[in-house]
């Protein structure tokens, strides 16, 4: 191949109902980030602080869906990203936030904000700026088509690196034993 300057792939990332642990794990790839930045540039991401997602090659979503805004952002990603990746246990299966799914949302809110231990003069937050919670937490594939799943809580830096380098090289990402973890 001739040394034509290859166009960088545009990548967007976001954390929905997640803990940012997966994004921390992205940062954990350490100095390999520099190599990565020779091949990609970031669109919307906590790393750039760009607020809306434009046309992208790859969208990486951490966290599941626990409120209306999560669903809105996920749809924005799906519309704009050629390849959409669910990263981490919450995006893939709902994860820890989904452990409220067997509880009634009203009971949850009342217990946390009104009747729970140590709550004084509590009230259920109702600022119009706050997105409404969903009655259940959903994994991403419940709402949009997901192209690749990268499980782990969080996926290790090595797993993320293997996944991304496979994807950038045009291979189907394959983690294999030792990198594929659900925990």
């Amino acid at each position, binding site marked *: 191949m001739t040394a034509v300057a290859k166009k960088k792939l545009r990548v967007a990332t976001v954390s929905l109902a997640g803990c940012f642990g997966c994004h921390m794990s992205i940062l954990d790839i350490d100095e390999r980030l520099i190599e990565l930045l020779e091949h990609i540039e970031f669109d919307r991401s906590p790393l750039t602080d760009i607020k809306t997602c434009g046309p992208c090659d790859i969208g990486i979503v951490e966290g599941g869906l626990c409120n209306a805004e999560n669903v809105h952002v996920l749809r924005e990603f799906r519309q704009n990203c050629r390849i959409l990746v669910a990263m981490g246990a919450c995006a893939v*299966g709902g994860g820890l936030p989904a452990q409220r799914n067997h509880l009634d949302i009203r009971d949850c809110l009342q217990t946390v904000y009104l009747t729970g231990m140590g709550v004084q003069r509590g009230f259920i937050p109702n600022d119009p700026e706050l997105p409404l919670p969903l009655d259940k937490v959903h994994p991403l594939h419940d709402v949009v088509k997901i192209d690749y*799943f990268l*499980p782990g809580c969080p996926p290790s830096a090595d797993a993320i690196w293997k996944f991304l380098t496979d994807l950038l090289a045009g291979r189907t990402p394959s983690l294999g034993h030792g990198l594929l*973890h659900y925990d």
Partner: protein
Amino acid sequence: MSDKLPQPAGLPIFLLDGHEIPFQPGQTVMQAALEAGFYIPHLCFHEEFKPHGSCKVCTVKVNGRTVASCTTAAAADLDVESETSELRDLRKTLVQFLFTEGNHFCPSCEQSGNCKLQAVAYELDVLSAHFNPIFPDRPLDASHPDVLLDFNRCILCELCIRASSEVDGKDVFALAGRGITKHLIVNAESGRLADTKLAVNDKAMSVCPVGVIQRKRRGFAVPIGQRTYDQKPISEVTISRLQGHPIGHAEDQEGDGR
């Protein structure tokens, strides 16, 4: 492809993916394959118990027909296919159903890393549950002083039922309901584990392939990431664990649960 194994003279053989597998009369395809050092993924099969045939994760093709290898009797000259992409995909889907039906939050499960469902899923390269999750409501039973039951993870393999009745002689567990409502119950009038004779040294405490039957006050003795199937894939762990053990020979058929 054929791979001659050192085999006791006179034993009949069948073919597993082209390998010659010797077997004792009375053995199943699964038993003979494992004894010969070939792993076939499985969940409800346990070498110390009579085959149960419910999970179908061990499905193979015998002379072109799909059957459960753990309940199919070995016979001379069978042509068994196991490691094909078709069968891998089928097993993968079955495993994904199991994740979909229950609540499997591996990061907060004490069984993670020692769990056969998870390890088989790793082996089959399952990256998500694929189907839309059901998120069933399955309350825990924490009534017993030493044991916690987390029904969210039960895959209905009946190993605890078999162990409790055949080995412990206590009949602590049973299944109730049908189809998607089928679930594990505790055999006590109150339905509570505290009102049974289950004790921590019972066989039923050690056979669950997933994380339902948990010993209390034992959490995280081994850190996540350093557990059995973190070290090696379940195919390797199973074969090295069973190496040199006769499995399902005639004199050993009663499922004595050693």
